[in-house]
């Protein structure tokens, strides 16, 4: 019984982090129709910025917020200085569908190299601000720790803020309209280019928080070549696809489903399946519901 509860709580925590990464991928996809593989690099760069802030002011939570804004700024900068030009020059022909993806992979390499130049290639440590020793229930000790609880609360707050922005504000309305029907949005007077940059900025913010929380879910150490960040990218991407790629709600559900399934596979089947489990989940969803859990089949389109 205790193992079952532990499995759920671990899965829920890592699922929450995947959900943030999935949101980051969905936000970029919705604003520019690009799958941004450089997202892993942005998350890593944001984690390093968080590290730098913790070094100088030793407050993890302030660092998390600064890293979030830095991630947003970096992401917006990439959209303005790089993607906008690229998409303009590769807007038609067979290259149109491939060029942006290859370009984001290239960017990933550039960002990692830049990080290695600034901070060096060795591991750095951001000490998790809360204990990673599990809560106790009677004589049992859970795996769920104060740090994991803080991670879940942070993710939940960010998701709440994002959904308020999207559903209740004028900016959210502009973001949604530009995502679903850019031409109609322009005809209605929405400055779609600006809204796209904003979409990338929100994505960068979500990715940054995912990056720093990811390190704190472990022992807090990371390097430019950390496997965890590649896994975060893959898990986030798979979660986004499971969720239908268009929907933020879908991204959150996709992330949680993926986190829970992987956790159960690890605990009850075999730890060696850790790298395979996400892909199996992806394949199963694609075979049964290719449009994703939330996605609707594209029927009539305005």
């Amino acid at each position, binding site marked *: 019984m205790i193992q079952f509860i532990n499995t759920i709580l671990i899965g829920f925590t890592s699922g929450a982090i995947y959900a943030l990464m999935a949101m980051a991928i969905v936000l970029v996809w919705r604003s520019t129709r690009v799958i941004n593989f450089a997202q892993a690099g942005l998350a890593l760069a944001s984690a390093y910025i968080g590290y730098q802030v913790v070094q100088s002011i030793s407050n993890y939570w302030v660092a998390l917020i600064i890293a979030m804004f830095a991630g947003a700024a970096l992401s917006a900068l990439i959209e303005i200085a790089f993607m906008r030009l690229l998409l303009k020059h590769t807007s038609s022909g067979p290259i149109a569908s491939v060029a942006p993806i290859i370009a984001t992979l290239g960017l990933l390499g550039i960002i990692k190299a830049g990080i290695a130049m600034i901070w060096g290639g060795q591991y750095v440590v951001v000490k998790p601000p809360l204990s990673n020793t599990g809560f106790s229930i009677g004589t049992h000790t859970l795996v769920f720790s104060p740090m994991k609880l803080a991670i879940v609360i942070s993710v939940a707050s960010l998701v709440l803020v994002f959904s308020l922005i999207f559903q209740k504000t004028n900016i959210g309305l502009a973001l949604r*309209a530009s995502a679903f029907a850019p031409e109609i949005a322009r005809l209605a*007077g929405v400055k779609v280019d600006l809204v796209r940059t904003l979409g990338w900025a929100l994505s960068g913010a979500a990715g940054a928080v995912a990056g720093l929380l990811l390190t704190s879910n472990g022992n807090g150490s990371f390097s430019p070549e950390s496997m965890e960040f590649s896994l975060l990218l893959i898990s986030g991407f798979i979660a986004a696809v499971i969720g239908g790629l268009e929907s933020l709600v879908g991204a959150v559900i996709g992330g949680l489903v993926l986190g829970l399934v992987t956790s159960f596979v690890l605990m009850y089947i075999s730890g060696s399946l850790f790298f395979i489990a996400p892909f199996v989940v992806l394949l199963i969803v694609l075979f049964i519901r290719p449009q994703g859990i939330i996605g609707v089949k594209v029927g*009539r389109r*305005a």
Partner: protein
Amino acid sequence: MSLIVHGLTVDHGAIRAINDVSFTVDKGKLAAVIGANGAGKSTLLRALSGLNSTTAGTAEWRNHNLLHGKPEAHVRKGVSHVSEGKSVVAELTVEENLDLGALWRRNKREATESKSQAIELFPRLGERLLQRADTLSGGERQMLAIGRALMSKPELLLLDEPSLGLAPLVIEQIFQTIRGIVDSMGLTVVLVEQNAMGALKIADTAVVLNLGRVAATGSAADLIADPAVRAAYLGY
């Protein structure tokens, strides 16, 4: 002020879609642009609203040349375009679609007034404010598209085939509403239509396009009476 289009030419790659088109629409008048499929009607409107880039010509409106600048800038100068195929955002609610048209407006009280006006004009939209736009019927979607355009407080309204895919009774209703908008709000309207007879009946003036060139122009009544126009575009 009127809309004065002069020497408008648009190329789609190697194909000349619009060739040296000139016409004038007086303020508060409804001009129909009719012609067969591929005559360049939609391209003409898309050029006027800034969606398509043009090769040559001018389109003078309130001391601006509409052939320069982006659609989002045109909207702020009082030009609203309802693009072909019921231009609503399917994933948004009816109310959100309406609000979308007024997002750029600074005066929110006026925007709210525009919304009441749009709902008064199309009461069916008022009953369905919280429904998603893709649950509406074809006619209701067209009403919503026009309502959204009106939310931007336009003085020049560009309508692309509002009758497309609608039942005859609904078409009649939409056309009457368009005429009503011109008469009551004093808007200048350019109405592109495949349904030539329906459009000519409500229009003040008309431009007949053939393969990207102006084939005939004049008052709508004269064109209806013109045997050549009747034979080529009205089918009798």
